[in-house]
C-alpha cells in the first residue's frame, strides 16, 4: 500500500486560520484531492471510513446555516464523530471565558475544532489552548479560508487553472471576510483581480498594487472569466454607508445586460446568502452562467479534503 504523500510540501501548518497558512502547492494539493471527495458525494452510499474514531468539534459563536451544515456533513461523510457547541445554549451564558470553554472541550479529546466567531482573531486564541487543529469557519471580517478554497476549486474545476483568469468581485468588500481570503488565494494562484464597489465599501487595506479597482461596472466586467458577487451585509450597515439600496443596485448591482461585456462563458459566483435585487439581480443568479449551487456541493467536497489534510495522527 505504498503511495505518494498527499501534501506537496510536508511542512503543513497545524491550523488553518487564514490562507497564509497554506502555500500554493498545498492549495493545489487540496484542490486536486477535492476531486476524489466530490466523486464520493455522487455514490449511493456517501460515506467513507477515513476519519473513524476522530472527533470534530463545531464551535459556532455566531449564526450560520450553510457553513455549519457543510462542515457537519463533511465530517459525517468521513465517519468522524461530531460535537456541536453553540454560544447561545452554552455556559458562555454563565460568563465562562472562551479559554475555559475550549480547555474543557480539549479535555474531551477533540481532534479538530471548526470555529466561527464574530470577533477577528478568536481562532488564534483557541489554537493556543488546545492540542488539536483549528479550522477557521469565519472570524469577524478577518478571514474565511474554507470559503476561499471552495471558490478556488470551483474556478479550477471549470478552467483547469487559475493563473491568468480575470476575476471580478462586486458588492460589499468592506465587511466581507470572504473577499479577504479570496483575494489572498487568487493572488497566490496568479489570477487578475478587479474590484467594483463604492468607495465607502472599499477598505484601505484591500488596495493592493496587484488588485485593480473601478467604480464602473461595465469596465469591471469587461472580459471577466468569473464574476463574484458579495452579500451586502445589511445587518452591519446601520451607519448608512450606502445611501439607498435601489441606488446601489443601479450603479453597482450585477445585471444581466452587463454580462455581454464579459467572457462568453463567464461564471457567476456568490458565497450566499444572496440579496436578489441588491448586489445581484435574480435573473443573473438563476442564469445558465450561475454556479451558486455548484459552489455548495464543492464546499462539501473541499471541506472533506481539508479535514483529510489537517487531521493529525
Amino acid at each position, binding site marked *: 500500500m505504498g*503511495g505518494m504523500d*498527499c501534501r506537496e510540501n510536508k511542512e503543513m501548518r497545524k491550523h488553518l486560520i487564514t490562507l497564509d497558512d497554506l502555500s500554493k502547492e498545498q492549495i493545489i494539493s487540496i484542490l486536486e484531492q477535492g476531486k476524489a471527495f466530490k466523486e464520493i458525494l455522487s455514490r449511493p452510499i456517501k460515506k467513507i471510513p477515513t476519519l473513524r474514531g476522530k472527533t470534530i468539534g463545531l464551535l459556532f459563536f455566531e449564526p450560520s446555516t450553510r457553513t455549519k451544515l457543510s462542515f457537519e456533513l463533511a465530517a459525517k461523510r468521513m465517519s468522524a464523530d461530531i460535537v456541536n457547541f453553540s454560544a447561545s445554549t452554552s455556559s458562555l451564558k454563565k460568563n465562562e471565558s472562551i479559554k475555559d470553554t475550549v480547555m474543557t472541550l480539549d479535555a474531551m479529546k477533540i481532534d479538530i475544532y471548526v470555529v466561527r466567531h464574530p470577533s477577528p482573531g478568536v481562532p488564534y486564541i483557541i489554537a493556543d489552548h488546545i492540542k488539536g487543529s483549528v479550522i477557521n469557519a469565519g472570524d469577524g471580517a478577518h478571514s474565511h479560508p474554507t470559503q476561499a478554497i471552495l471558490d478556488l476549486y470551483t474556478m479550477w474545476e471549470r478552467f483547469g487553472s487559475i493563473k491568468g483568469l480575470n476575476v471580478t468581485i462586486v458588492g460589499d468588500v468592506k465587511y466581507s471576510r470572504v473577499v479577504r481570503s479570496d483575494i489572498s488565494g487568487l493572488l497566490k494562484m496568479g489570477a487578475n483581480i478587479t474590484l467594483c464597489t463604492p468607495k465607502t465599501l472599499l477598505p484601505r487595506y484591500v488596495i493592493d498594487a496587484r488588485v485593480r479597482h473601478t467604480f464602473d461596472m461595465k469596465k469591471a466586467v469587461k472580459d471577466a472569466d468569473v464574476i463574484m458577487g458579495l452579500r451586502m451585509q445589511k445587518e452591519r450597515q446601520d451607519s448608512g454607508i450606502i445611501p439607498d439600496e435601489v441606488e446601489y443596485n443601479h450603479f453597482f448591482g450585477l445585471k444581466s445586460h452587463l454580462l455581454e461585456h464579459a467572457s462568453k462563458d463567464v461564471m457567476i459566483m456568490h458565497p450566499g446568502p444572496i440579496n436578489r435585487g441588491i448586489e445581484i439581480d435574480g435573473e443573473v443568479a438563476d442564469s445558465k452562467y450561475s454556479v451558486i449551487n455548484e459552489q455548495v456541493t464543492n464546499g462539501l467536497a473541499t471541506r472533506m479534503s481539508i479535514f483529510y489534510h489537517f487531521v493529525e495522527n
Partner: protein
Amino acid sequence: MKIKSKIMEKVDIFRSLKRISHEIIEKNKGTENLAILGIRRRGVPLGEIIHKEIEAEEKKKVASGILDITLYRDDLSTLADKPKVNSTEIDWNVNDMNIVLVDDVLYTGRTIRAALDEIMDYGRPRSIQVAVLIDRGHRELPIMADYVGKIIPTKSNEVIEVKTDETDGEWAVWIAEKTKK
C-alpha cells in the same frame, strides 16, 4: 534496497495476463455482467490489458473502472504522512455485476479488504473475484486470489516490485531485499 533479480520480463507478464484473461472468461462463462476493476496505481495498467484482451477475445464490450482505496485504508491513522487521494472511476451500476479486482501484488490482503469495503459502498455486486500478477504470501487476512500470474514465495524482508510502462516506463517484475537502516 538491494535488487536481487528480475523475475519476469515484459513477455512473461503479458503471457500471464493473457492466461488470466482467458481464465476469467472461462470461470464467468463469457462476459455477461462482467466488469474489470483495476486498483490504483499498478493494478490500473494491468487491468487495462486484461480488459482489452477479454474484449478482443469475446468481441463484446466489457465494463471497466479504476478503484482508489486510499480513503479505506486501515493504517491511515498510523502513517506520519497521509497518502495522496485519487479518484475512483466507476461509471456503471455495481449491482449484480461480477467484478474482477486487479492488482499487481497480493501480500497481506489489506488492500483487497479495503477494496471490498469500497465496492460495497457502490452497491451489491453478484460476485467479486481477485486477479493478481504476483502472489507473494504472508497474508494477514483470510483473502485469496482467484487468478494468479505467478506465485513467488518470499521472505518478509523482501520486496516485489512490479514495474509497468505507465507508472515506471518499463515492464518488469523485480525482487529486492530491504536493507537495514
